[in-house]
């Protein structure tokens, strides 16, 4: 009896973890089960989910981006300064940054470089640029993004709507478009994609540019929430985004990624952090809780996989 496909199984575990965390929070604090409660719980998850999707695009072509956190910080600094005061220059800077990502993707492929090291070097570059733009914390959010992030649509909070839209758009791009199929094909078997007449260079450039686009959205959304920026604002995103992709059922190799899973993974990690404050456990353990959730979910998935193998 197979009532769930293998892909659905992979999604089920992080989704269950998310539901379990939510139930736990509502059980301890029923007042959180409200419009404002949901908004507060998931607000900060929106930029993390976008950064996770960016990391997912890079992981789809078997690479890893260690500069995600500094890049999102850099975008946040640009958003809080140029994009706010001179929108045209701000947009141009962000477009140039996206183009830089595409170039990096091509260089990594042409010279067969380890992506970890190149993005490690780039993380210093983005960090340096961020410090140059905003030497001290400050700046202010452009009015339109602030308005979007604090808007209160009827019935469903903004954070939830945003997460669903982001997941749907990313799902369409990665799973339903020919570009997405091509990118995942490069991750799965680059040689056969090449033999079929596709350009691997173009696919990798596209994947990197798409990753940068998601990361730019993450930086802008983050400033919309915090209203100001500093050069270290999103450093944690590098590790959180990798963890989110894996939590959502993605793999490091083989082009096996899931956009919906990545968003769920990011939401779960965000909730894991705030879960503790409801347990009245000191916030010292906040990062530790994220580590434990990660281990628990991966352990559970292993158990389910074994179960699956035995049954078939």
């Amino acid at each position, binding site marked *: 009896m197979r009532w769930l496909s293998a892909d659905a199984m992979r999604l089920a575990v992080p989704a269950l973890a998310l539901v379990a965390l939510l139930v736990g929070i509502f059980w301890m604090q029923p007042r959180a089960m409200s419009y404002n409660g949901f908004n507060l719980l998931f607000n900060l998850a929106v930029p993390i989910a976008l950064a996770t999707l960016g990391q997912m695009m890079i992981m789809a072509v078997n690479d890893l981006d260690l500069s995600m956190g500094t890049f999102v910080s850099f975008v946040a600094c640009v958003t809080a300064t140029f994009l706010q005061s001179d929108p045209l220059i701000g947009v141009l800077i962000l477009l140039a940054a996206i183009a830089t990502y595409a170039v990096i993707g091509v260089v990594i492929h042409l010279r067969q470089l380890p992506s970890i*090291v190149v993005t490690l070097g780039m993380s210093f570059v983005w960090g340096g640029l961020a410090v140059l733009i905003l030497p001290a914390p400050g700046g202010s959010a452009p009015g339109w993004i602030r308005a979007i992030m604090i808007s209160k649509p009827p019935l469903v909070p903004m954070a939830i709507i945003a997460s669903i839209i982001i997941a749907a758009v990313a799902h369409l791009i990665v799973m339903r478009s020919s570009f997405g199929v091509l990118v995942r094909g490069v991750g799965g078997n680059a040689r056969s994609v090449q033999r079929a007449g596709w350009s691997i260079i173009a696919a990798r450039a596209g994947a990197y540019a798409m990753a940068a686009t998601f990361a730019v959205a993450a930086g802008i959304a983050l400033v919309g929430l915090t209203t100001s920026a500093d050069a270290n604002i999103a450093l944690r995103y590098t590790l959180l985004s990798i963890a989110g992709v894996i939590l959502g059922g993605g793999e490091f190799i083989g082009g096996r990624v899931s956009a919906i899973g990545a968003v769920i993974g990011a939401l779960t990690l965000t909730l894991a952090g705030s879960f503790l404050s409801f347990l009245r456990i000191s916030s010292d353990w906040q990062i530790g809780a994220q580590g434990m959730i990660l281990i628990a979910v991966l352990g559970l998935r292993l158990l389910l996989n074994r179960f699956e193998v035995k049954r078939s």
Partner: protein
Amino acid sequence: MTLLRKPWIWSFVAAGAVWIVTVLATGGSSSLGLSQAALTFAAFSVMVGTGQMFVITLGPGNIDLAVPATMTLSGTVALKFMAENNGLILPGLGIAVLIGLCVGISNYVLIKALRIPPIIATLSLSFIVQSSAIWTNRGLRVKPPSAMADFTTDLTLGIPNLALIALAVTVAAWFLLNRSIYGRWISAIGQSLPAARMAGIPVDGVRLATYVLCAILASVTGYLLACFSGGAALNMGAEYLLMSIAVVVIGGTAVAGGDSNVPGIWGASLFMFLVVSMLNTYGFGAGFRLILTGLIIITVILAASGRQARIQ
């Protein structure tokens, strides 16, 4: 010309060039002080880099992201335990080693039992270790025992004590890698894990020992760094995550595993420190310094890839 063929020679050439440029800026007056500072700070990168090199040699995907958290936890706990008491220096070191032992074993248990990629296993664990460090530290800054503070900042025959310790570690690492059966096993596993298993190498034992070795080197470095800098700080390990990977790669160790390079770590560590002090001497601000550091890392890896292409 066999010396020029060694992959590690370039990191020393680069470090020497940067040293000359820096000393020239000060008219030669700083040559001794600069060399001693470089040796001292390089010592920390060398020790964590050596551990990371053993892990990276195990093959693709092997990396220890728990290094910074381990350093912080061992520095914090050991200093708290010693409580400025000179009699407790050795037991304090023992505690540091014990922490490294526990972290290393936990790392490998997660990798093996949950069958998750090392990057995610060590990442999840580092969240927990970092949380434990935050919890033990509680914002207190305990001073190191006076004898230990003196030892870590003193010179022997004009050479910093820390550099001598790091030298001893690297000599031992060199013998372990090139002259012991354990080193041959690591390289064999890095070149092909299935082949190593077929050849009867105790793969799990060797990998466990390697993760433990890396964690112990990190925890001892954390202990020394906390004594050297007059107390443990919660962010004291942060820069060593990227640094430990960077010095290994710039030093000429193959990122794909199976081929390690001990002398290169010294060249790369000296180089990384000297670049920063050179840019400082010439009056560059923090932003430009970071950007140039990043560009230099990328240039070095580009040059190294060209070199490998020619040899093949």
